[in-house]
Protein backbone atom coordinates (compact mmCIF):
# COMPACT_ATOMS: atom_id res chain seq x y z
CA UNK A 1 0.00 0.00 0.00
CA UNK A 2 1.21 3.49 -0.64
CA UNK A 3 0.14 6.86 0.54
CA UNK A 4 1.22 9.73 -1.66
CA UNK A 5 1.49 13.09 -0.03
CA UNK A 6 -0.61 15.72 -1.72
CA UNK A 7 -0.37 19.24 -0.36
CA UNK A 8 -2.52 20.90 -3.03
CA UNK A 9 -5.64 20.89 -0.92
CA UNK A 10 -3.70 22.36 1.98
CA UNK A 11 -2.39 25.25 -0.04
CA UNK A 12 -5.90 25.92 -1.37
CA UNK A 13 -7.14 26.43 2.20
CA UNK A 14 -3.95 27.99 3.48
CA UNK A 15 -5.76 31.22 4.41
CA UNK A 16 -7.45 29.23 7.20
CA UNK A 17 -4.04 28.33 8.60
CA UNK A 18 -2.50 31.76 8.13
CA UNK A 19 -5.47 33.48 9.72
CA UNK A 20 -5.34 30.87 12.48
CA UNK A 21 -1.68 31.54 13.15
CA UNK A 22 -2.28 35.27 13.41
CA UNK A 23 -5.16 34.68 15.81
CA UNK A 24 -2.99 32.33 17.90
CA UNK A 25 -0.36 35.02 18.22
CA UNK A 26 -3.00 37.59 19.05
CA UNK A 27 -4.48 35.37 21.77
CA UNK A 28 -1.02 34.75 23.24
CA UNK A 29 -0.03 38.44 23.20
CA UNK A 30 -3.26 39.69 24.76
CA UNK A 31 -3.26 36.94 27.37
CA UNK A 32 0.32 37.47 28.44
CA UNK A 33 -0.23 41.22 28.63
CA UNK A 34 -3.15 40.71 31.02
CA UNK A 35 -1.25 37.89 32.71
CA UNK A 36 1.71 40.17 33.36
CA UNK A 37 -0.61 42.72 34.97
CA UNK A 38 -2.20 40.07 37.16
CA UNK A 39 1.18 38.56 37.99
CA UNK A 40 2.84 41.87 38.88
CA UNK A 41 -0.05 43.09 40.97
CA UNK A 42 -0.41 39.89 42.94
CA UNK A 43 3.34 39.38 43.35
CA UNK A 44 3.84 42.88 44.74
CA UNK A 45 0.80 42.42 46.93
CA UNK A 46 2.04 39.03 48.08
CA UNK A 47 5.48 40.20 49.22
CA UNK A 48 4.06 43.13 51.17
CA UNK A 49 0.89 41.57 52.58
CA UNK A 50 -0.01 39.58 55.63
CA UNK A 51 -0.78 35.92 55.95
CA UNK A 52 -4.44 36.06 54.89
CA UNK A 53 -3.74 37.70 51.52
CA UNK A 54 -0.81 35.38 50.93
CA UNK A 55 -3.03 32.35 51.52
CA UNK A 56 -5.62 33.55 49.02
CA UNK A 57 -3.01 34.31 46.35
CA UNK A 58 -1.28 30.98 46.95
CA UNK A 59 -4.64 29.20 46.62
CA UNK A 60 -5.25 30.85 43.25
CA UNK A 61 -1.80 29.84 42.02
CA UNK A 62 -2.14 26.27 43.27
CA UNK A 63 -5.61 25.89 41.76
CA UNK A 64 -4.50 27.01 38.31
CA UNK A 65 -1.32 24.99 38.40
CA UNK A 66 -3.02 21.77 39.35
CA UNK A 67 -5.98 21.85 36.96
CA UNK A 68 -5.41 21.01 33.28
CA UNK A 69 -5.78 24.02 31.01
CA UNK A 70 -8.40 22.33 28.85
CA UNK A 71 -10.58 21.84 31.92
CA UNK A 72 -10.21 25.51 32.85
CA UNK A 73 -11.27 26.42 29.33
CA UNK A 74 -14.41 24.27 29.66
CA UNK A 75 -15.14 25.62 33.12
CA UNK A 76 -14.97 29.24 32.05
CA UNK A 77 -16.74 28.84 28.71
CA UNK A 78 -19.47 26.32 29.59
CA UNK A 79 -19.56 26.32 33.38
CA UNK A 80 -19.45 29.96 34.41
CA UNK A 81 -22.32 31.29 32.22
CA UNK A 82 -24.67 28.65 33.62
CA UNK A 83 -23.97 29.77 37.16
CA UNK A 84 -23.70 33.52 36.79
CA UNK A 85 -25.60 35.66 34.36
CA UNK A 86 -22.88 36.63 31.89
CA UNK A 87 -22.41 36.03 28.21
CA UNK A 88 -19.23 36.16 26.23
CA UNK A 89 -17.83 34.87 22.97
CA UNK A 90 -15.62 31.81 22.87
CA UNK A 91 -12.68 34.03 22.05
CA UNK A 92 -13.24 36.37 24.99
CA UNK A 93 -13.75 33.44 27.30
CA UNK A 94 -10.51 31.87 26.12
CA UNK A 95 -8.53 35.10 26.56
CA UNK A 96 -9.90 35.40 30.08
CA UNK A 97 -8.92 31.82 30.84
CA UNK A 98 -5.43 32.05 29.38
CA UNK A 99 -4.83 35.37 31.16
CA UNK A 100 -5.77 33.86 34.53
CA UNK A 101 -3.66 30.84 33.65
CA UNK A 102 -0.51 32.78 32.72
CA UNK A 103 -1.15 35.20 35.58
CA UNK A 104 -0.86 32.35 38.07
CA UNK A 105 2.46 31.22 36.65
CA UNK A 106 3.75 34.77 36.47
CA UNK A 107 2.85 35.50 40.12
CA UNK A 108 5.37 32.82 40.99
CA UNK A 109 7.94 34.13 38.52
CA UNK A 110 7.63 37.73 39.70
CA UNK A 111 7.42 36.83 43.37
CA UNK A 112 10.69 34.91 43.30
CA UNK A 113 12.17 37.68 41.15
CA UNK A 114 11.19 40.30 43.73
CA UNK A 115 12.70 38.23 46.50
CA UNK A 116 15.89 37.78 44.49
CA UNK A 117 16.59 41.53 44.42
CA UNK A 118 19.68 41.91 46.65
CA UNK A 119 18.90 43.40 50.03
CA UNK A 120 21.79 45.81 49.67
CA UNK A 121 20.06 47.57 46.80
CA UNK A 122 16.96 48.07 48.89
CA UNK A 123 19.10 49.37 51.74
CA UNK A 124 20.73 51.81 49.33
CA UNK A 125 17.27 52.95 48.21
CA UNK A 126 16.25 53.47 51.83
CA UNK A 127 19.48 55.25 52.67
CA UNK A 128 18.94 57.98 50.06
CA UNK A 129 15.44 58.53 51.41
CA UNK A 130 13.22 56.84 48.84
CA UNK A 131 9.71 56.01 50.02
CA UNK A 132 8.56 52.36 49.81
CA UNK A 133 6.67 53.08 46.59
CA UNK A 134 9.70 54.79 45.03
CA UNK A 135 11.90 51.90 46.09
CA UNK A 136 9.49 49.51 44.40
CA UNK A 137 9.28 51.46 41.14
CA UNK A 138 12.86 52.67 40.80
CA UNK A 139 14.89 49.96 42.49
CA UNK A 140 13.02 46.72 42.93
CA UNK A 141 11.00 46.38 39.73
CA UNK A 142 13.81 47.21 37.26
CA UNK A 143 16.11 44.63 38.82
CA UNK A 144 13.30 42.12 39.15
CA UNK A 145 12.38 42.47 35.46
CA UNK A 146 15.96 41.89 34.46
CA UNK A 147 16.10 38.76 36.58
CA UNK A 148 12.79 37.40 35.31
CA UNK A 149 13.06 38.22 31.60
CA UNK A 150 14.19 34.71 30.53
CA UNK A 151 11.37 33.10 32.51
CA UNK A 152 8.97 35.63 31.02
CA UNK A 153 9.87 34.73 27.45
CA UNK A 154 9.61 31.03 28.23
CA UNK A 155 6.14 31.62 29.62
CA UNK A 156 5.17 33.50 26.48
CA UNK A 157 6.43 30.67 24.26
CA UNK A 158 4.48 27.99 26.06
CA UNK A 159 1.47 30.28 26.09
CA UNK A 160 1.67 30.54 22.31
CA UNK A 161 1.51 26.74 22.10
CA UNK A 162 -1.29 26.61 24.68
CA UNK A 163 -3.49 28.70 22.40
CA UNK A 164 -4.12 25.44 20.49
CA UNK A 165 -6.43 24.44 23.34
CA UNK A 166 -8.85 27.15 22.14
CA UNK A 167 -9.80 24.78 19.29
CA UNK A 168 -11.95 22.77 21.72
CA UNK A 169 -14.35 25.69 21.99
CA UNK A 170 -14.14 26.44 18.25
CA UNK A 171 -11.97 29.55 18.40
CA UNK A 172 -10.58 29.64 14.82
CA UNK A 173 -6.89 29.67 15.74
CA UNK A 174 -4.21 27.58 14.06
CA UNK A 175 -5.07 24.13 15.40
CA UNK A 176 -8.76 24.74 14.73
CA UNK A 177 -7.87 25.71 11.16
CA UNK A 178 -6.00 22.44 10.83
CA UNK A 179 -8.98 20.45 12.09
CA UNK A 180 -11.26 22.27 9.70
CA UNK A 181 -9.06 21.39 6.71
CA UNK A 182 -8.76 17.81 7.94
CA UNK A 183 -12.53 17.39 8.19
CA UNK A 184 -13.06 18.86 4.74
CA UNK A 185 -10.20 17.30 2.78
CA UNK A 186 -9.13 14.23 4.80
CA UNK A 187 -5.49 15.08 4.10
CA UNK A 188 -4.68 14.38 7.75
CA UNK A 189 -0.94 13.81 7.43
CA UNK A 190 -0.34 16.79 5.19
CA UNK A 191 -2.30 19.28 7.21
CA UNK A 192 -0.74 18.31 10.54
CA UNK A 193 2.73 18.30 9.00
CA UNK A 194 2.19 21.81 7.73
CA UNK A 195 0.71 23.01 11.01
CA UNK A 196 3.52 21.43 13.02
CA UNK A 197 6.02 23.23 10.81
CA UNK A 198 4.13 26.47 11.34
CA UNK A 199 4.17 26.12 15.14
CA UNK A 200 7.82 25.16 15.04
CA UNK A 201 8.94 28.01 12.81
CA UNK A 202 6.91 30.61 14.67
CA UNK A 203 8.17 29.27 17.98
CA UNK A 204 11.76 29.48 16.82
CA UNK A 205 11.28 32.96 15.43
CA UNK A 206 9.75 34.10 18.73
CA UNK A 207 12.50 32.47 20.74
CA UNK A 208 15.15 34.14 18.61
CA UNK A 209 13.49 37.55 18.88
CA UNK A 210 13.02 37.23 22.64
CA UNK A 211 16.63 36.18 23.18
CA UNK A 212 17.69 39.25 21.23
CA UNK A 213 15.58 41.41 23.51
CA UNK A 214 17.08 39.71 26.56
CA UNK A 215 20.60 40.24 25.30
CA UNK A 216 19.93 43.91 24.58
CA UNK A 217 18.51 44.28 28.06
CA UNK A 218 21.56 42.65 29.61
CA UNK A 219 23.91 44.80 27.57
CA UNK A 220 22.02 47.96 28.41
CA UNK A 221 21.90 47.22 32.11
Amino acid sequence: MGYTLNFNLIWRHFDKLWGGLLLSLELAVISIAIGILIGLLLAVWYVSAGRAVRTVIAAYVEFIRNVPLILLVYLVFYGLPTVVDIAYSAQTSFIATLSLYSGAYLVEVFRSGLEAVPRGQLDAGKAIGLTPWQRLVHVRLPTMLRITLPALSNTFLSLFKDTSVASVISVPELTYGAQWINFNTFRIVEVYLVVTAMYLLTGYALLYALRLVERRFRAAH
Partner: protein
Amino acid sequence: MSISPPANPALLDISDVSKSFGSVEVLRAVSLQVTRGEVVTVIGPSGSGKTTLLRCVNFLESYDSGSIRIDGKEVGFREMGTHQRRSERDLAKMRAETGMVFQSFNLFPHLTAAGNIMLGLRKVRGKSSTEARAIAEHWLGRVGLAHKADSLPAELSGGQQQRVGIARAVAMEPKILLLDEITSALDPELVGEVLEVVRSLAEDGMTMVMVTHEMAFARDASSRIVFMADGGVSAAGPPAEILGTEIDNERLRSFLARFRASHF
Protein backbone atom coordinates in the same frame (compact mmCIF):
# COMPACT_ATOMS: atom_id res chain seq x y z
CA MET B 1 15.12 81.11 84.51
CA SER B 2 16.44 80.41 81.08
CA ILE B 3 18.13 77.31 79.85
CA SER B 4 20.99 78.11 77.54
CA PRO B 5 21.81 75.58 74.85
CA PRO B 6 24.98 73.56 75.38
CA ALA B 7 28.05 75.20 73.95
CA ASN B 8 28.67 72.50 71.38
CA PRO B 9 25.42 70.65 70.74
CA ALA B 10 25.87 67.18 69.31
CA LEU B 11 24.80 66.79 65.69
CA LEU B 12 24.40 63.09 66.30
CA ASP B 13 23.36 62.02 69.76
CA ILE B 14 23.19 58.31 70.41
CA SER B 15 22.08 57.66 73.93
CA ASP B 16 21.70 54.35 75.75
CA VAL B 17 20.84 52.39 72.61
CA SER B 18 20.30 48.68 73.09
CA LYS B 19 19.35 46.06 70.60
CA SER B 20 19.01 42.29 70.54
CA PHE B 21 18.74 39.84 67.72
CA GLY B 22 16.73 37.12 69.43
CA SER B 23 18.66 36.27 72.57
CA VAL B 24 21.88 37.87 71.38
CA GLU B 25 22.43 41.38 72.70
CA VAL B 26 24.32 43.17 69.93
CA LEU B 27 24.16 46.67 71.38
CA ARG B 28 24.29 47.33 75.13
CA ALA B 29 23.38 50.83 76.16
CA VAL B 30 25.64 52.47 73.61
CA SER B 31 26.07 56.22 73.91
CA LEU B 32 28.03 58.37 71.48
CA GLN B 33 27.93 62.05 70.61
CA VAL B 34 29.29 63.43 67.37
CA THR B 35 29.60 67.17 66.79
CA ARG B 36 29.50 68.96 63.48
CA GLY B 37 32.63 68.46 61.41
CA GLU B 38 33.91 65.56 63.46
CA VAL B 39 35.23 62.40 61.88
CA VAL B 40 34.58 59.51 64.23
CA THR B 41 36.00 56.09 63.49
CA VAL B 42 34.50 53.00 65.07
CA ILE B 43 36.82 50.03 65.43
CA GLY B 44 36.50 46.70 67.14
CA PRO B 45 36.45 42.97 66.58
CA SER B 46 33.82 41.52 64.26
CA GLY B 47 30.56 40.92 66.05
CA SER B 48 31.12 43.86 68.36
CA GLY B 49 28.10 45.72 66.95
CA LYS B 50 29.87 48.42 64.90
CA THR B 51 27.90 47.90 61.71
CA THR B 52 24.64 47.43 63.58
CA LEU B 53 25.19 50.72 65.39
CA LEU B 54 25.81 52.49 62.09
CA ARG B 55 22.68 50.94 60.57
CA CYS B 56 20.64 52.14 63.53
CA VAL B 57 21.66 55.74 62.86
CA ASN B 58 19.66 55.80 59.61
CA PHE B 59 17.20 53.24 60.92
CA LEU B 60 18.06 50.50 58.48
CA GLU B 61 17.91 48.60 61.76
CA SER B 62 15.50 49.36 64.53
CA TYR B 63 16.60 49.30 68.15
CA ASP B 64 14.88 48.19 71.30
CA SER B 65 15.54 51.07 73.65
CA GLY B 66 17.39 54.35 73.97
CA SER B 67 17.34 57.15 71.45
CA ILE B 68 19.23 58.37 68.41
CA ARG B 69 18.86 62.03 67.52
CA ILE B 70 20.17 63.99 64.60
CA ASP B 71 20.03 67.75 65.10
CA GLY B 72 17.77 67.07 68.06
CA LYS B 73 15.25 65.01 66.11
CA GLU B 74 14.60 61.41 66.98
CA VAL B 75 15.44 59.31 63.93
CA GLY B 76 13.22 56.26 63.85
CA PHE B 77 10.54 56.85 66.43
CA ARG B 78 7.91 59.46 67.01
CA GLU B 79 8.82 62.08 69.58
CA MET B 80 8.34 61.95 73.35
CA GLY B 81 9.80 58.54 73.95
CA THR B 82 6.75 56.64 72.79
CA HIS B 83 8.98 54.16 70.95
CA GLN B 84 6.34 54.22 68.27
CA ARG B 85 7.85 53.76 64.84
CA ARG B 86 7.58 56.65 62.44
CA SER B 87 5.51 56.22 59.29
CA GLU B 88 7.42 54.99 56.26
CA ARG B 89 7.11 58.44 54.68
CA ASP B 90 8.62 60.14 57.73
CA LEU B 91 11.34 57.53 57.92
CA ALA B 92 12.23 58.22 54.30
CA LYS B 93 12.48 61.96 55.14
CA MET B 94 14.67 61.29 58.16
CA ARG B 95 16.94 58.95 56.21
CA ALA B 96 17.50 61.63 53.59
CA GLU B 97 19.31 63.58 56.34
CA THR B 98 22.07 61.00 56.45
CA GLY B 99 24.14 59.47 53.71
CA MET B 100 25.44 55.95 53.73
CA VAL B 101 28.20 54.18 51.85
CA PHE B 102 28.14 50.40 51.95
CA GLN B 103 30.77 47.71 52.09
CA SER B 104 29.36 46.06 48.95
CA PHE B 105 28.76 49.39 47.12
CA ASN B 106 25.09 48.56 46.45
CA LEU B 107 24.85 50.66 43.32
CA PHE B 108 21.62 50.33 41.35
CA PRO B 109 22.75 48.03 38.52
CA HIS B 110 20.29 49.32 35.92
CA LEU B 111 21.38 52.95 36.28
CA THR B 112 24.57 54.61 35.05
CA ALA B 113 27.01 56.24 37.46
CA ALA B 114 25.26 59.58 36.93
CA GLY B 115 21.85 57.88 37.09
CA ASN B 116 22.69 56.38 40.48
CA ILE B 117 23.44 59.84 41.84
CA MET B 118 20.49 61.50 40.13
CA LEU B 119 17.81 59.14 41.44
CA GLY B 120 17.76 60.54 44.97
CA LEU B 121 18.28 64.11 43.78
CA ARG B 122 15.23 63.87 41.55
CA LYS B 123 12.86 61.74 43.61
CA VAL B 124 13.81 62.87 47.11
CA ARG B 125 15.22 66.37 46.64
CA GLY B 126 12.84 67.22 43.80
CA LYS B 127 15.54 68.54 41.47
CA SER B 128 14.90 68.79 37.76
CA SER B 129 16.68 66.36 35.51
CA THR B 130 19.10 69.05 34.31
CA GLU B 131 19.92 70.23 37.83
CA ALA B 132 20.39 66.66 39.03
CA ARG B 133 22.65 65.89 36.10
CA ALA B 134 24.79 68.94 36.84
CA ILE B 135 25.13 67.98 40.50
CA ALA B 136 25.94 64.39 39.55
CA GLU B 137 28.64 65.54 37.16
CA HIS B 138 30.08 67.86 39.81
CA TRP B 139 30.41 65.03 42.32
CA LEU B 140 31.67 62.54 39.77
CA GLY B 141 34.38 65.10 39.04
CA ARG B 142 35.17 65.35 42.75
CA VAL B 143 35.72 61.59 42.99
CA GLY B 144 37.73 61.56 39.77
CA LEU B 145 35.13 59.85 37.59
CA ALA B 146 33.87 62.65 35.36
CA HIS B 147 34.60 60.47 32.32
CA LYS B 148 32.52 57.56 33.69
CA ALA B 149 29.21 59.39 34.08
CA ASP B 150 27.46 57.19 31.54
CA SER B 151 29.04 53.90 32.54
CA LEU B 152 26.99 51.19 34.18
CA PRO B 153 28.20 49.80 37.51
CA ALA B 154 29.10 46.50 35.85
CA GLU B 155 31.56 48.39 33.65
CA LEU B 156 33.39 49.92 36.63
CA SER B 157 36.10 48.53 38.90
CA GLY B 158 35.33 48.03 42.57
CA GLY B 159 37.17 51.19 43.53
CA GLN B 160 35.31 53.19 40.91
CA GLN B 161 31.97 51.74 42.01
CA GLN B 162 32.71 52.68 45.59
CA ARG B 163 33.62 56.22 44.57
CA VAL B 164 30.27 56.45 42.76
CA GLY B 165 28.71 55.13 45.98
CA ILE B 166 30.33 57.96 47.90
CA ALA B 167 29.27 60.53 45.30
CA ARG B 168 25.70 59.21 45.44
CA ALA B 169 25.65 59.71 49.21
CA VAL B 170 27.26 63.15 49.43
CA ALA B 171 25.39 64.61 46.45
CA MET B 172 22.29 64.53 48.67
CA GLU B 173 24.06 66.96 51.02
CA PRO B 174 23.51 64.85 54.12
CA LYS B 175 24.17 66.20 57.59
CA ILE B 176 26.19 63.11 58.41
CA LEU B 177 27.92 60.56 56.23
CA LEU B 178 27.97 56.97 57.45
CA LEU B 179 30.72 54.77 56.03
CA ASP B 180 30.34 51.06 56.65
CA GLU B 181 33.62 49.22 56.02
CA ILE B 182 33.75 50.82 52.62
CA THR B 183 37.13 49.38 51.66
CA SER B 184 36.67 45.84 52.98
CA ALA B 185 35.41 44.42 49.68
CA LEU B 186 38.15 46.07 47.61
CA ASP B 187 41.37 44.67 46.23
CA PRO B 188 44.26 46.17 48.25
CA GLU B 189 45.49 48.30 45.35
CA LEU B 190 42.07 49.99 45.05
CA VAL B 191 41.77 50.97 48.71
CA GLY B 192 43.91 54.07 48.38
CA GLU B 193 41.79 55.84 45.75
CA VAL B 194 38.66 55.43 47.89
CA LEU B 195 40.30 56.61 51.11
CA GLU B 196 41.67 59.61 49.25
CA VAL B 197 38.09 60.69 48.50
CA VAL B 198 37.09 60.26 52.14
CA ARG B 199 40.07 62.31 53.23
CA SER B 200 39.11 65.19 50.94
CA LEU B 201 35.54 65.12 52.28
CA ALA B 202 36.93 65.31 55.82
CA GLU B 203 38.95 68.36 54.81
CA ASP B 204 35.69 69.94 53.57
CA GLY B 205 34.31 69.55 57.07
CA MET B 206 31.87 66.73 56.34
CA THR B 207 30.70 65.07 59.53
CA MET B 208 31.44 61.37 59.28
CA VAL B 209 31.06 58.20 61.27
CA MET B 210 32.97 55.33 59.79
CA VAL B 211 33.51 51.72 60.60
CA THR B 212 36.83 50.55 59.25
CA HIS B 213 39.72 48.19 59.65
CA GLU B 214 42.16 50.64 58.05
CA MET B 215 43.98 51.60 61.23
CA ALA B 216 46.53 53.84 59.56
CA PHE B 217 43.75 55.77 57.89
CA ALA B 218 41.77 55.94 61.12
CA ARG B 219 44.78 57.37 62.88
CA ASP B 220 45.42 60.01 60.21
CA ALA B 221 41.92 61.05 59.28
CA SER B 222 39.76 60.84 62.39
CA SER B 223 39.27 63.29 65.17
CA ARG B 224 38.15 60.53 67.51
CA ILE B 225 38.30 56.75 67.63
CA VAL B 226 35.69 54.65 69.35
CA PHE B 227 36.56 51.09 70.29
CA MET B 228 33.59 48.77 70.55
CA ALA B 229 33.61 45.36 72.17
CA ASP B 230 30.70 43.06 73.02
CA GLY B 231 28.09 45.58 71.92
CA GLY B 232 29.35 48.44 74.05
CA VAL B 233 31.76 51.36 73.78
CA SER B 234 34.85 50.09 75.53
CA ALA B 235 37.13 53.08 74.91
CA ALA B 236 36.94 56.38 73.08
CA GLY B 237 39.33 59.21 72.52
CA PRO B 238 41.73 60.91 70.13
CA PRO B 239 43.60 58.53 67.78
CA ALA B 240 46.95 59.09 69.46
CA GLU B 241 45.49 58.01 72.77
CA ILE B 242 43.45 55.02 71.57
CA LEU B 243 46.07 53.62 69.23
CA GLY B 244 48.94 54.50 71.54
CA THR B 245 50.72 52.10 73.83
CA GLU B 246 49.79 53.84 77.05
CA ILE B 247 46.14 52.86 76.97
CA ASP B 248 44.87 51.06 80.00
CA ASN B 249 42.29 48.79 78.39
CA GLU B 250 43.06 45.10 78.18
CA ARG B 251 40.50 44.35 75.43
CA LEU B 252 41.72 47.17 73.24
CA ARG B 253 45.33 46.14 73.75
CA SER B 254 44.70 42.57 72.73
CA PHE B 255 42.54 43.70 69.77
CA LEU B 256 45.32 45.96 68.52
CA ALA B 257 47.97 43.32 69.17
CA ARG B 258 45.99 40.73 67.18
CA PHE B 259 45.33 43.30 64.51
CA ARG B 260 48.99 44.22 64.16
CA ALA B 261 50.00 40.57 64.13
CA SER B 262 47.67 39.84 61.23
CA HIS B 263 48.61 42.91 59.21
CA PHE B 264 52.35 42.83 59.30
